[in-house]
């Protein structure tokens, strides 16, 4: 795949991102290789939010005056864009504050009211804490159990073992689409089918896939698919839950307050239609406007072209990291089976020291457990160093990383 689509021109794209286009205070170029933590923002996104605040800032949904109607339109355009991005029906697109809240919504609203002792939630051994801890919390409350599906030494899901763990006790299967540590892309549609075969629900954490490749929620057919704004060129403060409308309709609400009601009396309340039923209080309005701008920006480039670019980046990155003595890359090596997040361990050097050294070269990478401590234990390490790319990452960034890593070894005297 990939080669029929022209990759993006990452160097040219940098110009659209003010943080990347401007030299650092010390005059040098920044090599931002931490997009799996959060992406940089194009000027168009900042402009859209500023325009919202300067032209039509008002609270949404109930204002009679024109400015409030215009604010509502711009806000709802964020929902429309998010639904379009993942090919999902609009009424199933709930706006949350981040991907983590979106998963917690499912865990609390559905889980606490439904799970019983003996029930199992199956998650994979490469989940982010956001798809582990909510289930542990709800399991503690309800008596259900969280089960972890093993991963192979190559950093992929063990599909046979996974199949074996999906039983009639399984009530929900949670799986990450693209691992934020290993880069691994998981066969989520297949896993959703396995979950549905036993009558379990399926949740796909698409936080690391939606920004980087075409993702079709309708084709994946999960009951819940989550992603987050700040990793796809959008602002902080907004995340998305793409839920199957019939399932969302059946679940009682989560957060209560303004917007999500139909009627409130001292005796009790009734709920608004989905998706508003799950959106209590003043929503992230400017953030939805920024999200729409980010999605238009990505669509203008083409998610398939971004994916093609990152496929090339995989080849460059693996070749570059292979040149560094004592370095072991984790996760799949096949660029068709992985995204642009690369974790490694290095003989005799701790990730903190590596990241600190790289920072002195204006290279931003992440060191630590990447919110995936269970996975770290499987990998037999406490921490890794991770470099992660995006549509604006260039071969120059990759080569700067390689050179700095080689220099790092001699600087710390580990040859």
């Amino acid at each position: 795949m990939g080669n029929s689509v022209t990759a993006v021109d990452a160097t040219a794209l940098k110009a659209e991102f003010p943080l990347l286009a401007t030299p650092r205070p010390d005059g040098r170029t920044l090599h931002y290789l931490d997009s799996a933590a959060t992406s940089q923002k194009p000027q168009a996104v900042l402009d859209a939010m500023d325009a919202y605040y300067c032209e039509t800032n008002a609270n949404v949904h109930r204002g009679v005056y024109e400015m409030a109607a215009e604010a509502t339109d711009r806000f709802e355009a964020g929902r429309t864009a998010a639904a379009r991005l993942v090919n999902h029906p609009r009424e199933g697109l709930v706006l949350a504050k981040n991907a983590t809240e979106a998963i917690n919504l499912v865990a609390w609203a559905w889980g606490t009211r439904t799970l019983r002792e003996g029930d199992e939630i199956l998650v994979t051994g490469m989940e982010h804490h956001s798809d582990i801890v909510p289930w542990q919390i709800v399991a503690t409350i309800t008596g259900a159990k969280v089960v972890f599906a093993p991963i192979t030494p190559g950093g992929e899901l063990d599909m046979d073992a996974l199949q074996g763990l999906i039983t009639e006790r399984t009530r929900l299967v949670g799986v990450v689409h693209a691992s934020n540590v290993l880069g691994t892309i998981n066969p989520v549609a297949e896993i959703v089918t396995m979950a549905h075969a036993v009558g379990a629900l399926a949740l796909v954490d698409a936080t690391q896939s939606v920004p980087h490749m075409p993702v079709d929620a309708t084709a994946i057919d999960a009951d819940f698919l989550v992603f987050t704004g700040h990793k796809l060129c959008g602002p902080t403060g907004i995340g998305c839950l793409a839920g199957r409308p019939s399932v969302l309709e059946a679940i009682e609400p989560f957060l209560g307050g303004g917007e999500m009601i139909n009627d409130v009396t001292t005796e009790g309340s009734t709920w608004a239609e989905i998706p508003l039923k799950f959106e209590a209080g003043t929503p992230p309005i400017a953030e939805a406007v920024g999200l729409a701008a980010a999605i238009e920006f990505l669509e203008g480039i083409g998610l398939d072209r971004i994916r093609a670019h990152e496929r090339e980046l995989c080849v460059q990155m693996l070749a570059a990291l292979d040149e560094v003595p004592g370095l072991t890359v984790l996760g799949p090596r096949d660029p068709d089976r992985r995204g642009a997040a690369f974790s490694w361990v290095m003989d005799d050097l701790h990730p903190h020291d590596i990241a600190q050294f790289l920072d002195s070269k204006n290279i931003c990478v992440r060191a630590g457990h990447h919110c995936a401590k269970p996975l770290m234990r499987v990998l037999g390490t406490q921490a890794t160093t991770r470099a992660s790319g995006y549509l604006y990452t260039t071969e120059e960034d990759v080569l700067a990383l390689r050179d700095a890593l080689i220099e790092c070894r001699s600087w710390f005297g580990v040859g």
Partner: protein
Amino acid sequence: MGGLDDLYQQLILDHYRNRRGRGRIDHASASVHEHNPVCGDECYLDILVLDDRLVEVRSDGDGCSISQAAASMLTEVAEGKRLEEALETVEHFRLMMHGEVEPDEDVLGDAIALEGVAKYPVRVKCALLSWLALRDAIAGYRETTAHGG
């Protein structure tokens, strides 16, 4: 104030001030009580059906000029129509409110004056309140008679 005059056409203000078909029906074939979640306005709608035809339509409840005028126009337009025809009229009105149809005066009668409401999303709910109540009332009527016989 072209916008305002456009929204509040004379015909609307007239129906608002002299509301037609206001009230309840004692032995209604079906009754519906709806409210507008935006402002809390309430709408009661009663229908009397004979031979698959709306022989009487009455509506009650307080509300803004748009919702009152819409209810007033509804009773005029709907009375005498066969149920299927009435439902088609409601659907035509609904599509007009969402700007998805070229409105037809022959179908809508005075209610065509509400076309300008479509530009005001919050007010669309006001205009639709009684009309969707009619849809629900017909559905409710059909359900009871289906079950009853």
